[in-house]
C-alpha cells in the first residue's frame, strides 16, 4: 500500500463557536471519507476560528468580550471537544488533523495548536506553534520544543509546521531529520508568495506538501457576534475586501509541481492520491538530511524537553535525583 489519499479541507469556521465548528469538521470529514480520503487535514486554528480582531482593530482596543469568547471556546486537550474530534476520526476511520485554539484546562493563555488523531481515535500527535506572527503575539503563547515529533501514520510519516513557522529553517530541518513524507502546513497565509514557499519546501525535502487555509466571507460572521459592526468596520472591508480569509489551499508533489489548487474565495476540499514511492525516488536528487547534508560543518541541537511554567521539586524527587 503505497498510495495515500489526502483531503485538504478549505472551509469556513463558525467564528468563535467551538461546538458548531466541530460539527462542521464532522460533516466535512464524513464527506471526505466517503470520497475515500485516509488523511483529512483542516486549517490553522479552524476550531473555533481566527481571532480576526487582532488585525481589524488596534491592539487591546475594546477586545475584552472577543478574547473572552476565544478563551471559553478554546479546545482543552482531553476535554469534551478533543474527545469529540477523536470520535469523528474513529467514526470515519481516518487520520484527522485539525488546527485549534488550545488552552490548558485551568489556563488563560491560548496556543495555536495542531492535533493529530489516529483512525482508532487516539491523539497521536500535537504541535503547538513555536512563534506567532506579528499581532498574533497578542493572543497566542509560544510552544516549547516538545511538540515537534513527526507522526507515523502507517502508510506515511506525517508532520509539519503552522503558517510562518514554515519559514524557520531549523525547525524544518529538525522535522526533515525525523523522516517526513507528507508535510502539513495549516495556514492563514495568502497570495502567491506563500505558494512559492509550499513548492520550495516540497523540493527542499522531496516530500508531498499540503497547504490548507480557511475561507471566510464577511457575510459569514454570525449575525449575533458581539460588536459585529466594530469588528468589520466599513473602512477595513473597503481596504481589504470582503474575504476575511481568502483561502490558498494547495497540494504539491515532491518535485515541487502543483498537484491541485491553489483554491481561493470558495469552499472546496482538494483530494489527491499521493504515491509515497516517489518520495524516496526523488531523494536520490536531494536529501537535505542525508547525502546533501554536511554534518561535519553543521550541527543542529534541539531541546525537545517539555518546559512547563514550573517544575516542582518535592523532597522525594530531590532525594531521587541527588542521593545524599
Amino acid at each position, binding site marked *: 500500500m503505497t498510495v495515500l489519499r489526502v483531503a485538504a479541507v478549505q472551509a469556513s469556521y463558525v467564528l468563535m463557536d467551538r461546538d458548531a465548528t466541530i460539527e462542521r469538521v464532522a460533516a466535512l470529514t464524513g464527506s471526505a471519507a466517503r470520497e475515500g480520503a485516509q488523511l483529512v487535514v483542516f486549517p490553522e486554528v479552524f476550531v473555533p476560528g481566527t481571532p480576526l480582531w487582532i488585525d481589524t482593530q488596534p491592539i487591546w482596543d475594546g477586545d475584552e468580550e472577543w478574547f473572552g469568547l476565544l478563551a471559553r471556546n478554546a479546545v482543552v486537550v482531553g476535554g469534551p471537544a478533543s474527545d469529540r474530534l477523536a470520535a469523528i476520526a474513529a467514526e470515519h476511520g481516518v487520520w484527522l488533523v485539525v488546527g485549534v485554539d488550545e488552552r490548558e484546562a485551568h489556563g488563560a493563555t491560548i496556543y495555536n495548536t495542531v492535533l493529530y488523531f489516529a483512525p482508532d481515535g487516539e491523539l497521536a500527535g500535537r504541535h503547538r506553534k513555536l*512563534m506567532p506572527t506579528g499581532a498574533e503575539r497578542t493572543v497566542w503563547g509560544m510552544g516549547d520544543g516538545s511538540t515537534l515529533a513527526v507522526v507515523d501514520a502507517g502508510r506515511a510519516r506525517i508532520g509539519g509546521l503552522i503558517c510562518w513557522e514554515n519559514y524557520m529553517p*531549523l525547525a524544518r530541518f529538525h522535522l526533515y531529520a525525523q523522516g517526513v513524507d507528507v508535510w502539513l502546513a495549516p495556514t492563514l497565509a495568502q497570495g502567491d508568495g506563500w505558494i512559492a514557499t509550499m513548492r520550495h519546501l516540497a523540493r527542499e525535502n522531496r516530500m508531498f506538501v499540503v497547504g490548507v487555509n480557511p475561507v471566510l466571507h464577511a457575510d459569514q460572521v454570525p449575525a449575533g457576534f458581539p460588536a459585529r459592526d466594530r469588528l468589520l468596520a466599513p473602512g477595513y472591508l473597503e481596504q481589504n475586501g470582503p474575504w476575511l480569509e481568502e483561502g490558498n489551499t494547495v497540494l504539491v508533489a515532491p518535485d515541487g509541481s502543483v498537484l491541485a489548487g491553489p483554491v481561493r474565495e470558495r469552499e472546496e476540499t482538494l483530494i489527491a492520491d499521493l504515491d509515497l514511492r516517489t518520495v524516496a525516488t526523488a531523494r536520490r536528487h*536531494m536529501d537535505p538530511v542525508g547525502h546533501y547534508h554536511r554534518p561535519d560543518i553543521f*550541527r543542529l541541537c534541539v531541546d525537545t524537553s517539555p518546559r512547563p511554567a514550573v517544575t516542582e521539586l518535592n523532597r522525594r524527587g530531590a532525594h531521587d535525583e541527588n542521593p545524599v
Partner: protein
Amino acid sequence: MDPVKVAAVQAAPVLLDRDETIAKVVTLAGKAAAEGARLVAFPEAFVPGYPDWVWRTRPWDADATALYARLFDQAVVVGSPATDLLAETAARLGIWLSVGVDERDDRDSTIYNTLLHFAPDGTLAAGHRKLMPTGGERLVWGTGDGSTLQVVDTGFGRLGGLICWENYMPLARAALYAQGIDVYLAPTWDNSEIWVPTLRHIAREGRTYVIGVTSCISAADLPADLPGRDSLYGDSGDWLSRGNTVIVGPEGDILAGPLTGEEGVLYAEIDTTRAQISRQQFDPVGHYSRSDVFRLIVDTSPRAAVSLEEES
C-alpha cells in the same frame, strides 16, 4: 542607505576557454558598470564554464575524461593572472564583481565550484566553495569546508550567497542569515520553473534580496575543438542551459526576470533598508528564532587534508 543598482549577467561562457571567457566577463562587467551597476554578478562556474557533460556521458568514457582534462587545464587558480585580471576589472570599474569559477589550488588537483567576490578596491573580499555538488557534478568537483560561508559588507548591504542546490540546504542558509545577509547571490545551472519559487521563498525566509544568475548557452556556442563536440552535442536547438536569471525583493516580489532563451543583463534597484525594515514581519535569526529550542553550531575552521606542522 541609498538604493543602488545591481546587475545579473546571463551569458554564454566560451566553454573550457578560461581567457576568452574572462575577456567576456571584462566586457560585460564594463557594460553593466556603464549602466550604473555597483554589483555585477555572473553565473555558477562561468569561468571556464559548467561541466555540462557530466549529465551526458557515461562517467568514465573517453570523452568525459578528455573534457575533464581540459577543465583541469583551464580551471582558475586563486592568485594567478586570471584572478588578477578579475580583481583589476573590479577596481577599474569601481564595482563589486562576483564570478563563479571552476577553481583549483596551484598544487592540488581537485577542482572546486567556487564563487569569488572581488571588491571595488581590487581585493578578493570573499570566496565560497560549494559545500556539496549535485549528482553527476560529484565526479568533477570536490566539497568545500565551512570556512567559506562568510558574508561581506559592501557598504550598500551585506553580500554573500550559495551555489545552485546548496540553496536547498536550510542550515547553510541559516548560517548566512545569521551574518545579516542583505544581498544573497544564487548562481545556478538550474533551468526549472520551480527554481524561481525557491528563490522567492529564500527572499521571504531571509528577508533579503536574492539574485539568481544562470548561464545561457546552446550547442551553437561551443568551440569546434571541444572534445566530444559532435558526439555529445547537437545544434543551436540543443540547449545546455536556457537561462533562468531572476532578481527578487525581500518579500518575495520579482523585480526582474526570469530571463530565458537569450543572453542579457538584468538590473534592479536594491535598498537594503527595505530588507531590514521587512524583518519587522519576519526575522529568522531574531524575533522569529527560538534559540532556546534550536542551537545551530557551524564549524567554520579551514580543514586541510593534511597539516604539515613542526613539532612545538
